[in-house]
């Protein structure tokens, strides 16, 4: 499994590219890091890869996942997971239901699905929290739940948008280690956008710095 970007560039309303065209190859279990000043379009790059570009943005180049060209596909068909800084858990669902929302349809039967959710929660140190309101979790707990939710969908790659920036220093390294460990074990390519050099350092994969075109 690998994620490759070829000549990827994003324009706004037909203007000049936000950043120079990007070529990048991420191997399975590898985490590539993109850094750069705020406003340069780091999150927009992730939107382009995941297929989430907002109105007015257009994208050139190709996104290939395991040799499959996903450039023209809608986000729900790309199988690329997405994790945000403050988690993006659905506020109307319990923690367990948030995970169940992501759980692949191939897991059938109520008991089996519940067990899968419980397992994922246990793995993230969130035992017994299935019925909790996401708003009552701590920042670290929310981040772990969001990551588990993304992984339960069985993604072939994962995008992380400043995933640790809301956490204090101690939780940050803990969460970083937890995330990297999971991604390596799943052997999927990951792309992280961050402004923290320590994140990029720990990622250990290709590193690049975006600058305005």
């Amino acid at each position, binding site marked *: 499994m690998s994620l490759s970007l070829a000549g990827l560039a994003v324009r706004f309303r037909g203007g000049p590219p936000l950043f120079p065209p990007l070529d990048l190859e991420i191997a399975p279990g590898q985490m590539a890091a993109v850094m750069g000043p705020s406003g340069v379009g780091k999150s927009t790059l992730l*939107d382009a890869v*995941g*297929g*989430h*570009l*907002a*109105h007015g943005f257009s994208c050139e180049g190709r996104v290939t996942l395991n040799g499959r060209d996903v450039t*023209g596909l*809608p*986000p*729900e*068909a*790309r*199988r*690329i*997971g*997405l994790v*945000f800084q403050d988690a*993006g858990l*659905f*506020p*109307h*669902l*319990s923690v367990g239901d948030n995970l169940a*929302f*992501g759980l*692949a349809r191939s897991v059938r039967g109520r008991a089996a699905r519940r067990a899968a959710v419980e397992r994922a929660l246990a793995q993230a140190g969130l035992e017994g929290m299935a019925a909790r*309101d*996401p*708003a*009552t979790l701590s920042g670290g707990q929310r981040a772990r739940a*969001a990551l588990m*939710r*993304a992984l339960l*969908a069985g*993604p072939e790659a994962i*995008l992380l948008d400043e995933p640790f920036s809301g956490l204090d220093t101690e939780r940050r390294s803990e969460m970083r280690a937890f995330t990297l460990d999971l991604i390596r074990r799943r052997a999927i390519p990951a792309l992280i956008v961050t402004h923290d050099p320590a994140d990029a350092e720990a990622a250990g994969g290709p590193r690049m710095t975006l600058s305005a075109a």
Partner: protein
Amino acid sequence: MSRARDGRLLRGAVLAVLAAGLVAPIAAGLWQTARAAFGIMPAIGATEAGLAPLRALLDVPGLGTSVTVTLVTGLGATALSLALALGLAAVAHARLASPFGTRLLAPFLAAPHAAVAIGLAFLLAPSGWIARLLAPIFGWVQPPGVVTVGDPWGVALIVGLAVKEVPFLLLMILAALSQVRLRQDMAAARALGYGPGIVWVKVIAPQLWPLIRLPVMVVLAYSLSVVDMALILGPSNPPTLAVLLTRLFSDPDIARLLPASAGALLQLALVVAAFAGLWSVERAARSAGLWWLRRGGRGVTAEPGLRLAAFGASALLALGALALVSLALWSVAWRWPWPAALPETWSLRAWSGNARGWGAALTTTLALAALTTGAALLLAIAWLEGEDRARRGRAGWAEALIYLPLLVPQIGFLYGLNVLFLQAGVTDHFLAVAWAQALFVFPYVMIALSPAWRALDPRLVRSAAALGAGPWRRLVAVKLPVLLTPLMTAAAVGVAVSVAQYLPTLFMGAGRVQTLTTEAVALSSGSDRRVTAVYATLQAALPFAAYVAAFAIPALVHRDRRALRGAAA
């Protein structure tokens, strides 16, 4: 991309429904009216084009005064409402923007114009509640000989309109304030030595104006052409133009339909002229304001003025509240003669004796509200979801389309539309009324729902997409539940608008469709305040119940979800 095509299809379908259901009827109604205004109405044997209808209109006694009164009340009510709402927002926006504040506004937004007017008519009359409370102090044996309700210049009508329009504009201003960097601008300007009141006038208000211009135009068009409130509170000899025309349209002399149509065009012209006036005032204010701004003066203080406006707005809202309370009191009174401050004898006979009547009217009103609100909500969701899927913002013309029914005076096209419906053989009056009401329910539902829909955190939808949820699952499983509160609020707004409709129900219903509003207005020209009060109380209670439900249902459904509890309203 298939997704964009999906969006385009949805948008196309919504636009087709709107074009056929909303734009076409209004355009056709206007066309019929315009033809009749120039003498062409083959149905009554009028085939000769000419200016005779216009001449007949000009010949109606008191037309000039009527137009003057219309302009005075329409422009006066709009200017007063805007000034008071801005003043109150400046002084109390922080408190009003809270969920509590929005809830405080809800009864005023919910109460139909007719119910407020009926309550105010009693409150303000020389023999009314206020005069009764003052009678012992001033030793009045008889009601004072002052002119209040129905005064020749329409002051009572201006007050009545302001009671309803101040809360509406206030809500629009509060919504617009969330798009203005109020705190930062206030801090920046105050650091430059400007007092907070001056900052409001010089910095905040100019930023608000483009955001509230359309709602102000809606208020202007409405105030210039209101019928039910003007019937109850306005002058009678002559009345405002819209009331005069309503009477002409129902004159037994069929030939009067032609001058009535010419009058409908005149009404339209008045509204257009008022819009043009607003535009010139805006331009003049811009250059004068810039000159004032560039002088950099900090000396003048605006606080007293703003506080006065806030006080005026609060006094108006208190009047409105008293008016609604007086309705409830009258509905359970038996004898309440001058100068008693409270009823002498109490009775539930007004309720029990008319149970069949108000029961039927309540059922019809509920059915119409449910049908029109349901349809409008579905259409609004389809429109907004179409925008999302096509990844398009809203074009200016689309925004104008939504506001169209609120900017064209009802009397300008409703009679023409009625004739068209009859010719087309539409015999189901209930559906005709529902259709006509939906013309006005849909825009308000859109206005209520759009900001919240757009403010939805896009990352929630992206997360769902990244988890493999397609567009329909994203809509049903994420967007709609998260937006439950604004959806319910939009529904409550829809119910309130439907319940309040008078002219569409009267014209399209051919008298067969009797709602709480048409009954309350008809009874208000009767002798029994108690029975009128029963209908008006119900009329005000129904939308209020819808608002309560709009608060209660999301609170109940999301009782275990802190992030969604008490959020937005």
